[in-house]
């Protein structure tokens, strides 16, 4: 037995390491979907999300925000300040180091985020999804809002049965007509301008048309009556 252990001494640190890793990784949430069959995994249920043969959930490729071509290139793609913003949403405390943070309210800085349907109509507060202090960045690995588990930990609280695909709904919707939206959410941008053009075009034709018809008929009738 001793001989056996001595021969495999190198295995012990590996096993301790594996144990530590098991403790550190988050446990599976109850609402996470289970594999239905080894061969046919959720083909029907999650057809929209792509490949389930390898992974249980794969939400991130569904983000509608596309990166701007030509910007994310090179070893240092962002300026130092931009990089800070981008790393903040990966931090455990996304507001770390912000001056006078304790005396500020969410809407002091995130005013636009307080104006979407979830807040103005369903009366949700920021904390109900983003959690208490310290507010974790949404891309922080253990954050409940990480796209990896957002559907199970946050959306499913109200939207029972929510899937990873469902959680790709953009809660903080950008202003649909704004130029920046053309880059970040093109489909929304083009839908907005298409509908606006349709509306403006229809009314621009039919309102003057109706007024002209009204005036013309008025004079025409008068003329007729006078005969």
């Amino acid at each position, binding site marked *: 037995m001793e001989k056996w252990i001595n021969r495999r001494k190198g295995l012990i640190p590996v096993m301790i390491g594996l144990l530590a890793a098991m403790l550190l990784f988050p446990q599976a949430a109850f609402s996470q979907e289970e594999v239905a069959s080894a061969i046919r995994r959720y083909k*029907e*249920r*999650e*057809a*929209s*999300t792509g490949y389930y043969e390898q992974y249980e959930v794969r939400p991130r490729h*569904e*983000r*509608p925000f596309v990166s701007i071509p030509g910007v994310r290139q090179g070893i240092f793609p962002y300026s130092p300040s931009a990089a800070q913003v981008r790393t903040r949403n990966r931090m455990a405390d996304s507001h770390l180091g912000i001056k006078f943070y304790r005396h500020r309210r969410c809407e002091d800085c995130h005013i*636009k985020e307080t*104006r*979407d*349907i979830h807040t*103005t*109509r369903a009366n949700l507060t920021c904390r109900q999804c983003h959690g208490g202090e310290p507010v974790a960045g949404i891309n922080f690995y253990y954050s409940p809002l990480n796209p990896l588990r957002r559907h199970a930990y946050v959306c499913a609280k109200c*939207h029972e*049965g*929510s*899937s990873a*695909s*469902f*959680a*790709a*709904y*953009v809660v903080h*919707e*950008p*202003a*649909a007509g704004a130029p920046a939206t053309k880059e970040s*959410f093109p*489909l*929304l941008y083009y*839908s*907005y301008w298409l*509908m*606006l053009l*349709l*509306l403006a075009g*229809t*009314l621009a034709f*039919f*309102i003057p*048309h*109706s007024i*002209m*018809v*009204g005036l*013309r*008929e*008025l004079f025409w*009738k008068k003329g007729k009556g006078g005969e």
Partner: protein
Amino acid sequence: MRIRRFNKVEQLFHLFLIITFLVQAGTGFSRFFITTAWGKKLSYLFGGYDTSLLIHKWTGGLMIAGFLLHLIYLLSRVNWQNLGKSIFGPDSLVPNLQDARHLWQRILWLLGLGPPPKLERWAYWEKFDYWAVFWGLPLLAVTGLMLIYPLQTCRILPGWALNVAALLHRAEAILAVLYIFLVHFFIGHLRPSSFPMNEAMFAGTVEMEEAMAEKPAWVERLKEEGKLEPATAKPPALWYRIIYYIFGYSALVFGVYLLVNGIIYSPYVRLH
């Protein structure tokens, strides 16, 4: 003497559309404007914010059923032996080259530069009315169903499709409401030849002189084909006229009420 323009089924479809459209506009507006004082008041009419949605969903379902029934009715009206003439003929609502010509002639007439066009049974603006509903309703139905069943929708589409669906639903609804309450109501009630109310859709018939003045080509064709005699009808009964005047004006008042308040309160709705 009066001639028949709409049969009973078509009148029923229009009546159904008036009622469901106004309910959808009212419940939809009460939710869209819920953050304003007027929106809250409007929502009380439909039992509050949540009940408004319930009514909106069920009425939407009814409208979809009505649209499917209308499709069946359309198929029953097509003359399959003479398909080309049936679809592109003068009794059909399908737009054709003649409409473009009429539009041009009518613009000239509006500017006092020419005689009025000799319109057939359906004028180009009437065809536009019909097709606006015909494509608008399915768009509202599809986006509405997506929003009623978001989880099922996300099995086939990514979640952000719901953002787009909500935008399209709202935009198409606003377009429909503006068009109906501004243009359609003007054509039906306010323009001198219709004032105080164009009764064609409710009576199902129009005065001979009226038809001769606006749609001379239609009357001429009926005469040539010998169909004028069978198309003549009795004028509507007085009690019936009183009913549809009250109904039509109630719809008009409710529509204008929604339109005016919608315009007044639209700057206070903050949804980006």
